């Protein structure tokens, strides 16, 4: 990346942030409905499902956390799973930290950290301009509300839907994951290879004797670390991804 002396322009309009956050919020609403449903269907009370969404705001991490809670896993497993699954946020935070406007204080950073999600990061860091605090706070609002309200809706609605619809909805989250991975794997060959290795490892841990005794939380961590590390060794990334 080129270093220039010029100070980049800064996006710092609250209204623009709010506006850009609305489509993310709508998407989150629909995804978190699935989370609320799965949590309640698995046996968690409605308040717990909503509390998880309001304190975590992360899809993959919450679903993995939910499966560990329902499987009666340990707190250590829970922590390690969140660490591994959400490690990508560290990269996003790192990248975003380079694009924050000078008016962003340390306190702002503590607050903004809470809402660094894949989509919020993509919108905030995607542009060429620096990101100001007002813009980011505006951007945070709709996704946060969408995530919390969607979870509540799903949790409450869970018992009202017929079983056939509920079971088909179990596919929604995987549909999303597929929609995230496939376009990148199609475009970037090393990602395709890492994905292929992930499938092999994951199936091995799931189906092979002895290996299938590994709890689901650790299985996710183990397969992810091996596949991503293999990718990093075999196909190192030259530049920081934007």
């Amino acid at each position, binding site marked *: 990346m080129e270093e220039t002396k010029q100070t980049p322009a800064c996006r710092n309009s609250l209204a623009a942030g709010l506006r850009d956050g609305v489509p993310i919020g709508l*998407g989150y609403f*629909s995804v978190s409905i699935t989370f609320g449903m799965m949590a309640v269907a698995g046996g968690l009370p409605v308040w717990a499902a909503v509390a998880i969404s309001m*304190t*975590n705001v*992360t899809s*993959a991490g*919450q679903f*993995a956390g939910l499966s560990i*809670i329902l499987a*009666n896993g340990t707190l250590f497993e*829970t*922590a390690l799973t*969140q660490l591994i*699954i*959400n*490690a*990508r*946020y*560290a*990269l996003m*935070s*790192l990248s975003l*930290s380079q694009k924050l406007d000078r008016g962003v204080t*340390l306190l702002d*950073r*503590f607050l*903004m*950290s*809470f809402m660094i999600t*894949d989509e919020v990061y993509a919108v905030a860091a995607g542009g060429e301009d620096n990101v100001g605090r007002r813009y980011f706070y505006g951007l945070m609002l709709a996704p946060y509300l969408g995530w919390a309200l969607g979870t509540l809706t799903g949790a409450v609605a869970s018992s009202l839907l017929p079983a*056939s619809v509920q*079971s*088909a909805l*179990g*596919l*929604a989250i*995987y*549909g*999303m994951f*597929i*929609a995230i*991975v496939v376009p990148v794997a199609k475009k970037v060959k090393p*990602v395709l290879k*890492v*994905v292929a290795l*992930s*499938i092999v490892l*994951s*199936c091995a841990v*799931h189906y092979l004797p002895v290996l299938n005794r590994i709890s689901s939380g650790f*299985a996710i961590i183990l*397969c*992810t670390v091996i*596949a*991503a590390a293999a*990718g*990093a060794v075999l196909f*190192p*990334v*030259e530049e920081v991804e934007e």
Partner: protein
Amino acid sequence: MTYGIWAYIAVMAGVTYLVRMLPLTLFRKKLNNRFLRSFLFYVPYAVLTVMTVPAVFESTGSVFSACVGFAVALVLAYRGAQLLPVAIAACVAAFAADWLLALF
């Protein structure tokens, strides 16, 4: 449940927040370690894949409907459809497949 639900929620929220907060507040310089950078680049795709396969095949009423939904999601995602349409189409396809299965 071995621990209270609050304990799980606190651990999840605490770890997730720290992962986001520490780099944003501590590091202002670009990450130099190439391995770490590459590793973090591949993590999302690896973890999403590991969580999807093979769990997706047990996510609906039958392996058959799950496969139908999975295939529909793959095709649509390959053709560049957005997240939400892919998720909805997969669910509808699985629902239709289970409905068809019940007819025979």
